[in-house]
């Protein structure tokens, strides 16, 4: 199992990177949407 450590490293670091990307994209979209909806009745 130890020999295939690359799979586990990629799996762990990959999810780490993915989570950051998803969170950043989501927050950016949320802020953009909020700014667009400023002044419009909710």
């Amino acid at each position, binding site marked *: *199992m*130890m020999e*295939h*450590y690359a799979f*586990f*490293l990629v*799996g*762990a*670091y990959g*999810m*780490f990177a993915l*989570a*950051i990307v998803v*969170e*950043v994209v989501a*927050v*950016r979209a*949320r*802020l953009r*949407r*909020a*700014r667009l*909806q*400023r*002044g*419009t*009745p*909710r």
Partner: protein
Amino acid sequence: MSINWFKYASPASFLPLSATLAPWFLAVAALLGAIGLYLGLVVAPTDATQGDAYRIIFIHVPTAWMAMLIYVVMAAWSALALGYNTRLSAMMAQALAPTGAAMAFLALWTGAFWGRPTWGTYWAWDARMTSTLILLFLYFGVIALRSAIDDPRRADRACAVLSLVGVVNVPIIYFSVKWWNTLHQGSSISLTGAPSMAMSMLAAMLVMTFAVWSYCIGVVLWRVQAIIVERENGAAWLAQRAPA
């Protein structure tokens, strides 16, 4: 000169502050992250017992730490929100929950991917991982409660009470799960074994911890901007403000 602690206590004054601060924290996070990953993946030596798979600790430990820390900080803001009845304190608590949940999820995921190559299993019901799983449920609870209550101020207060009840329970839950786990230690795998640390490993871990910490602060300050704009929709100060 006395500090006016309440200067930034209104959403109106905090919005520009967070807009200024957030990018800095994210930049620091990126820089520290690059250094930390270099130290962890290139400089730190291969471990004698765990090979190269141990390098997952450089993201597992920071995310696990942040999952716990964010919950406590969220509870602190919740206490302020209930005590001072301030909107912004509640907004900060609201902004923290999703990042805390993400950190808890990452702690579980990286822990599983560390466990499989080193101890042969993705999941063993050990104390820390089980407590982190319950912590993830606690985060889900706060997030779910917020979306289930329509009135934002009522949701603020309900989530604040829930967070405070949760923060009292987190040490109790951790203690009880640890208790349960140590009783059954004989038949289960111990996942407490981090490799004995070389200096470079320790340095990498520390740098990554600060990197993830800075990232969390940055992304939370970013999210709180969105929350402020969402919730202050229709307020005069926001309408007059030039789009940032």
